[in-house]
């Protein structure tokens, strides 16, 4: 009997926890939509490219982190290996893009 009450309690606890996570994810979604609108707005507004390009790249990186940490649950515990793998991938990716874009200039 006591075991039953316990599991009912923990179920309630997890339900609340999931609800809290969901709230964060909805906020994340709203912010990603806002960032997307800002990025498109900057380009449609015809600002200088030296201003627009860095800003939209930063917005993309922030959206990337939102997606990883909230939508793909990397903010939860037990995600050390996924973090290692994805950041190793990002490191190799940065080198690849850098290499391919600088080769053409020389």
């Amino acid at each position, binding site marked *: 009997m006591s075991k039953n009450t316990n599991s009912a309690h923990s179920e309630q606890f997890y339900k609340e926890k999931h609800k809290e996570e969901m709230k964060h994810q909805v906020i994340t979604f709203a912010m*990603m939509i806002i960032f997307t609108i800002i990025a498109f707005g900057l380009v449609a507004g015809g600002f200088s490219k030296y201003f627009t390009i860095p800003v939209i790249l930063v917005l993309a990186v922030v959206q990337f982190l939102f997606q990883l940490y909230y939508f793909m649950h990397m903010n939860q515990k037990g995600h050390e290996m996924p973090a290692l793998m994805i950041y190793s*991938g990002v490191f190799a990716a940065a080198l690849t893009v850098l290499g391919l874009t600088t080769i053409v200039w020389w």
Partner: protein
Amino acid sequence: MTHDDMLRSDNLPHEPEKATLEGKNKFLGFWFFLGGETVLFASLFGTYLALKNSFGGTEGVPTTELYGLELVFIMTVLLLTSSLTSVYAMYHMKNHDFKKMQLWLGVTVLLGLGFLGCEIYEFYHYVHEYHHTFTAHAFGSAFYTLVGFHGGHVVFGLLWITTLMIRNAKRGLNLYNAPKFYIASLYWHFIDVVWVFIFTVVYLMGKVA
């Protein structure tokens, strides 16, 4: 735990996607795969950036005239929303509500199909209005390889999620298929991550420069 226990839908543990060794291994292995996918897409992005507006001896339409922002914006919102609906699906999976999970996965698939339809229209439009084809020039090849590869991922993701939904429709949620659903949703989020960089680097930066 016996095999029969794993296939039972009642009394699922907290986080059913990581409750078994198989589930844990799938989770780790899939993140490893996503690290590799990141590098794969980076090589396509690098190639695109290097060959952007390279027409060689032929005539071509530069990015500033070719791309239209309205359609890309609609595609972005469709894919971003489908990412949220697959989060909803995983929320219901964690609460062990199989029917609602299936419902939200269904919405995800519909939004993904909408995105795919827009992309097919976009490519059709480029080919027929601007003669911007895969074999026309280096820019065309790089563009269709990058964006087409992402589109291919969308197709694969849609087939994957649909297959899981149909195959497990009568089984309900259990420890055997919870990791499968979870990993398919990770894949879907990754597709959206790649799209964030495509709309920024390809379309927005193409429109500015």
